[in-house]
């Protein structure tokens, strides 16, 4: 296996507060990785750095062992093949579910290409498949704003898949979901991994257990422990951080 993403000695502070403190992390291609950590551990900032929303003060962020991610913007990282799902589901509420997927479909993103774009039969087929995958075919012509919270989460995952990214960054996908939806989401992410690299940030321990993958514990912008869920949850420091002893 080769390395998909490498963070090496990354630092980032906001007004003196060190949100990311000498963070080093390696994720292999096709891996499913869960990142856990208490509030303020730097999870979101880490995602912002990977997607080019925030620039690190120091340190290296390498994509596919070659591309420097500290020089890209959000659109640039998306074009490289990094897809991001927000914690709060953000879909295009005043457009149909189908259009939401169509907008995310991997195509030329330039202004002219988009202006003169005509949907091909192939694209239509792909949109149909994606709607099937996220079980939204029956509401394809609904406004995305009319979907339930869980459906919006799924639509957003569908949009991520439409981008056909190499790496998916998924921020708390189970937040606000019912238990059944949570388990289905875990199953979907396990399916996706292998073909794609997936990094999941999560609070819900049942969900992380259902993912059954390698876990990284973040604390104060630094990696505290890494390994299987059982391994890290027996770690003294992790228990201390989580239970506040």
């Amino acid at each position, binding site marked *: 296996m080769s390395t998909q993403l490498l963070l090496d000695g990354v630092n980032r502070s906001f007004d003196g507060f060190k949100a990311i403190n000498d963070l080093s992390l390696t994720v292999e291609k096709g891996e499913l990785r869960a990142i856990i950590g208490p509030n303020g551990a730097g999870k979101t900032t880490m995602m912002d750095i990977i997607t080019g929303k925030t620039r690190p003060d120091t340190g290296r962020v390498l994509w596919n062992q070659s591309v420097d991610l500290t020089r890209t913007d*959000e659109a640039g990282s*998306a074009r490289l093949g990094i897809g991001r799902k*927000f914690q709060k589901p*953000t*879909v*295009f509420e005043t457009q149909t579910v189908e259009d939401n997927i169509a907008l995310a479909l991997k195509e030329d*993103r330039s*202004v002219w290409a988009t*202006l003169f774009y005509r949907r091909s039969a192939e694209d239509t087929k792909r949109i149909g498949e994606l709607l099937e995958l996220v079980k939204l075919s029956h509401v394809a012509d609904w406004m995305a704003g009319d979907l339930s919270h869980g459906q919006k989460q799924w639509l957003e995952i569908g949009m991520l898949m439409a981008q056909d990214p190499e790496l998916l960054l998924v921020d708390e996908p189970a937040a606000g979901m019912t238990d059944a939806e949570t388990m289905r989401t875990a199953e979907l992410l396990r399916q996706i991994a292998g073909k794609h690299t997936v990094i999941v940030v999560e609070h819900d321990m049942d969900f992380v257990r259902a993912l059954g993958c390698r876990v990284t514990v973040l604390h104060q912008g630094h990696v505290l422990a890494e390994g299987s869920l059982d391994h890290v949850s027996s770690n003294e420091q992790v228990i201390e951080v989580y239970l506040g002893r």
Partner: protein
Amino acid sequence: MLSLIDRRMGIFLAGLFLLTVAVPAGNLVLAGQPVPSYIVALLGKYLCYALLAVALDLVWGYCGILSLGHGAFFALGGYAMGMHLMREIGARGVYANPDLPDFMVFLGWQELPWFWHGFDMFGFALLMVLLVPGALAFVFGWFAFRSRVTGVYLSIITQAMTYALMLAFFRNEMGFGGNNGLTDFKDVLGFNLQADSTRAGLFVLSAIALAAGLLVAKAITSSKLGKVLIAIRDAESRTRFIGYRVEEYKLFVFVVSAMMAGVAGALYVPQVGIINPGEFSPANSIGIVIWVALGGRGTLVGAALGAILVSIAQTLFTSWFPELWLFALGGLFVFVTIFLPQGVLGLIESRFARRRKPAAAKEASA
């Protein structure tokens, strides 16, 4: 092309077509002149406003860019046309100078400033009508959108832009006639601007420009690019994260809109016979926003309708109770914002939908 004309657009264009036939016919052909000449000029002016409103709706209604400076693009288009009309006066001015417009002779200038060259050619002037507003929008948008200035901050700097231009154009040294602006036009392409036939021709051209503007805007908004614009309006950062360079899309639509506003200004000036720095006034730009909000934001046709309705109301009101107009406009704006969030067009359409629905329900039960 035909696919662009939905029900809403079809009805509006049909109405516009009837007006375009009826008004010149009533003015030039029918006996007794049922449509007086001043009405032709007045209606032509409204159509220019309608095109300006469509231009603003394109950026505001679809992409969420609330420009409070769109009057500047309108005025620049108007000045470009006004400069041509000034050059066409030639030696017929008060000072009979074949090259210099009257105000330059009055200021004691010896030769034409460099930026006035070329405007003697109609084609060059037309090009400038598009290029000058387009270039300003490009430069302004390049910096603003790249620096991710959005929301209220963007609105404020667009307002500052038009205010700064107003102050600049007020200065005599700028070379655009200062306070008085450009006026006393004689003819355009050899047609006397005072003649009824010329006025009718300008009216028809304004109607064609409005129809074309509506169709261009409709083509843009119904393309995939239009969906990206709406995506930017509703969830800008989401749009970035799926790989669209938001600033490029904003820049594109802002420039197209500015050019459309420029065309509206260029058609406006020969019909009202003057362009002065007052057209840059921030209040004008806010007026455009009110037209669009009243008519129905994000509908194009609604914007055009709003501009026409408010302008008619303004004309009537200012002749009946001149001092009350601004209060009435303000009241109307508050009323529409609170009670008609979809604007006048939304009200009309929901009325029709309600009337049709019970009928359909009855049929179903029968």
